[in-house]
């Protein structure tokens, strides 16, 4: 473990109401990019990104970004099955999206794999820069839910990239090491083969914000 750099694959799923910015968070994290009008995700989108943590550990996130509309909820189990981490996202300007987030947390606790690491994300804090009164879910409410359910908690902005990488770092740090928990994937085999394929995902990642996440 000491000298060899280990790469660990982590399956991460994003859940949350429609248009709270799930795909934008992923786009920011993976490509350090932002699009004002992102097409809604149909079913789910799949992306990967590597993230190097301090202790010689690199994590390859296999990110499943899901559709947010309520009726797609019956498809969600297909995507969060075997996930080791989940981001439950809400929009701090939309109280309903917070209620929905609460439901997702409950569902994950009940249905997803044991020990799944869940981060609660209040997105779109950039909107507050225009007008503080647009906030409809207080920081405390988010914190309380996180405390109650033992979740990681962040408020983020995919637009300004505020806190985005920190979310993934925090999850990466909470993921138990490969050798501690066998997660069924023969990760080393995977990674060697995939190295070639996926370089392009990281090409743009030379901006200062993503200095923690390069390979």
């Amino acid at each position, binding site marked *: 473990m000491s000298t060899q750099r280990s790469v660990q694959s982590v399956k991460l799923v994003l859940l949350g109401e*429609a*248009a709270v910015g799930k795909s934008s968070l992923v786009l920011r994290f993976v490509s350090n990019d932002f699009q*004002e*009008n*992102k*097409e*809604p*995700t*149909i*079913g*789910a989108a*799949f992306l*990967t990104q590597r993230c190097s943590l301090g202790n010689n550990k690199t994590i390859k996130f*296999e990110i499943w970004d899901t*559709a*947010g*509309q*309520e*009726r*797609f*909820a*019956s*498809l969600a*189990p*297909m*995507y969060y*099955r075997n996930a080791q981490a989940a981001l439950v996202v809400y929009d701090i300007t939309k109280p309903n999206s917070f209620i929905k987030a609460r*439901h997702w947390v*409950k*569902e994950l606790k*009940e249905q997803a794999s044991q020990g799944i690491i869940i981060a609660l994300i209040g997105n779109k804090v950039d909107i507050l820069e225009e007008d503080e009164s647009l906030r409809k879910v207080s920081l405390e409410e988010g914190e309380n839910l996180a405390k109650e359910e033992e979740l990681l908690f962040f408020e983020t902005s995919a637009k300004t990239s505020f806190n985005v990488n920190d979310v993934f770092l925090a999850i990466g740090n909470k993921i138990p090491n490969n050798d501690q928990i066998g997660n069924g*994937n023969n990760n080393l085999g*995977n990674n060697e083969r*995939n190295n070639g*394929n*996926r370089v392009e995902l990281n090409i743009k990642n030379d901006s200062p914000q993503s200095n923690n996440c390069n390979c």
Partner: protein
Amino acid sequence: MSLFNTLRQKASSISLFDNTKPQNQPKKLTKDELFREEFRLPESESIVDEINTEVLIVSQEDTSSDKEHSNIVYSGKLYLTHHYLIFRDSFDNKSCVFIANLSTIKKVERIPSKSYIFALSILTHNNLKVLIQFIGIRSKSEQFSHNLKLQLKSNIPNTKKLQPFLDTLYSEFLIKKNSTTDPEKKNEIKLPEGGLGLIYKFPGDLRKLKDKSKLRLWFDYLRRYGRNLSISRQKMFFKLLRVGLPSRLRGEMWELTTGAMYLRFENLSVYHKILEDNEGKQSVAIEEIEKDLNRSLPEYPAYQTEEGINRLRRVLTAYSWKNPDVGYCQAMNIVAAALLIFQTEEQAFWTLSIICERYVPGYYSKTMYGTLLDQKVFESLVEKTMPILWSHIAKNDIQLSVVSLPWFLSLFLNSMPLVFAFRIIDIFFLHGPKTLFQVALAILRINGEELLEIDDDGTFISILKDYFNQLDDSAHPTSSDPKFRSLTKFQELLIVAFKEFSNITDDLITKERNKHRPSIMSNVESFIKKSQIRNLPRCKHLKPEHLSNIYDRFYECISLNNITLGIGSSTMTFDTFREFLSGFCDWVLHDDEYNYNENENDFLHRLFRNWDRQKQGELTLTDVVEGLDNFYNDDLLEAISNFFQIYDENNSEEVDRETILQISEGLLYLTKRLQDGLILDKLTQESIENYIADQIISKKKQTGSDDKINLPSEVEINKELFQREQGERYLSSASNFIGRAFEYAQPVEDVQLIDLGNSKDQKTLKANAALDPNHPLTLNLPTFRMVVLADETYELLFTSTLLSQIHLDRETKVTNKSGVLRDMFDGLIADGRRVANQVRRRMDSTANNENQSTKSEKSKLNSINDAEEEEEEDEFDMNKDYITDELLNNAELQVNDISDSHPIPKDDKLIERMNDLTLNNTEAHSENLIEFEH
């Protein structure tokens, strides 16, 4: 929450609908349904007449090209519906299919010919001449032409709709424009409204797509074989469609091949009416649509403009109003945005309707069951056609639908470059759902070798992503044959899809869908149930299994009530609520067993209002669960105050005179079954046990101490006596209640006027005021509580009697109207152990008092109970054979036999006296009541 409700409702109504048919058995379509499906006709069409004919179609516009398109006579069948005349060749059903709306028929002539031949000549608006020679019996031919005449006649009012409709069609414009040579006239011909592509350019390189030459070919075809509402589809038609439609004509051809054109012609101006009627209205669907408007094919320039966004908004909104069961589903925005590039709003609206309702039913529904079902079907087709790939996928635990679901849901529009997706859609509209499966299977087949190398979903997806981005590349770049080299990957895809997978037929798809439907439905149902129960508010008293039963009954009740009305809702009205409660609560009486009128139903109405927190006049599942959770409460004080709240509707913490009377009515209502002796409460139960014990003791005394007493068989119970006794006790409690309530209620008075010093006077004053029917008075919660607690029977009502009549652990079927009331005697006195304990206790005390105890006697009695001695009060050893059953059975059996020979128990006199008392009380009370009513 509300969305989930409707979702659940949808799922349950679908499966209920399915349950009415034997499962796994395909629903047989009627002849008319099949016919409509084949020719994409509106629901309103049905076959009026049909006959064998030979048909020759010639164009009077196109006289030049006869060399190329030789005039072939086709034999086949001619059908007449209310608004259409349809011919289909009997050779292969696609060599010549002629579909004409009756409005397009300008002239019908009998062709003069030899006497044994019967022939007609029909001329259409687009100068198509259809010569029809009837085959078969003369009279049948006569009849057909007579029917045709009748239909044409009744269709006359529709004919004036034709010309304005034709003016909206690009095909008419195309023919007109290219048929005149006069440049001035040419300029007069106005281009009809069309898709956004006319303004913002059509996607793709039109030159590369050879749009112009395609349009030229279509021009020839449409002139020669007709167009829009009267067209003959011949081999060339299909060929031209397969090479891709020219952009300008695409919108109309989509409309034609889906049958949306027929719908639009039938429902002129309906689209605009829907928009008008619903202007300014809000809905969940509209909120959801708004979220997605700016993100529907955002790379297409029109969707960065107001104009484009507005068209999309109107089409999606109108559809959400047309079909509220679907409302709006993500992916519909992409489909509609694609349609609008080529079609007008109205065209896109009807095409979208047909896609949602006929082509991919259930894809966009609130449960998306159609999507899930077709994924299952797709998986099973992959397994059948590519077993090696399938076993690889299965072995590596790759979820195929993760990859394929978006293909189906967005009709490949967000999977591959638009120009290719449009071409798949051209064919999809022509051939229906099997096309999606054929293309999807071909994608896997072509990439099969590469896919066999990988072992995770991620790589699986990225291989296919790469493939979609290379569709324009050569499929065989290294081939020496230039023809081969020029074949693109997309062309290869179509060849594989429609050649190699030509065995994927509509029938096969239908069969597979029918096979997997039941399991998908039940999965959807149980998923929704789970999430809905999970999202209910936390319950203090209800257990999970209670929630499950409540959920089942809730939806069973509303589905039953709504299916007949054909409305999908997720809330219950009062009548449904009553039905719902009757499954769990013994005290909910049915019309036939209760002389019910508004007043008597007062309690249930109040309960309904009490649970209806949003004050909507309807209850949601959450309301019902919260209400029941509150009601299902064994804490005496809470139960009493909850009950009081049902009557204290404005939360003033006090109720008036009228309401006090209603409370007592309510209490009478709740205890009706107890009054009738159908259910026995704890007090009666105890007195029965005492009675049995008494009997045993006295028996023992009579027969002498040494005789072993056969405890059960020799005790008989006068059932009616106990029932009557209980009934009277309840009536007396009711009358006591009202008496006390009025006695202790506070008159509403002017406080200042009271002389506080003179307390005696004040008391009498109060009492008098309370009895004065004209003087308003109020009863507050503490007083109500005191009045209830003053009566043992009512106190018990709130701690246990009421609760024991609610059976939430019972799975109920709506069909079994009320909870089955067993003969409560069987159930309630079943506790033989307690009786035995009683007997023992008494025997002991008798023994002590009379100094009569002998060990043998004791041991004999104990022999009945010795087993129980080591047990805790509340414990049973399930394996032990308690004698209770036998005890009771015997007791029952002997009631009749022995009752005569045994003296009435001495308690009887007491009961008689009690009766008198009760009667007096009620009499006195009823006088009061009369007074009050005056």
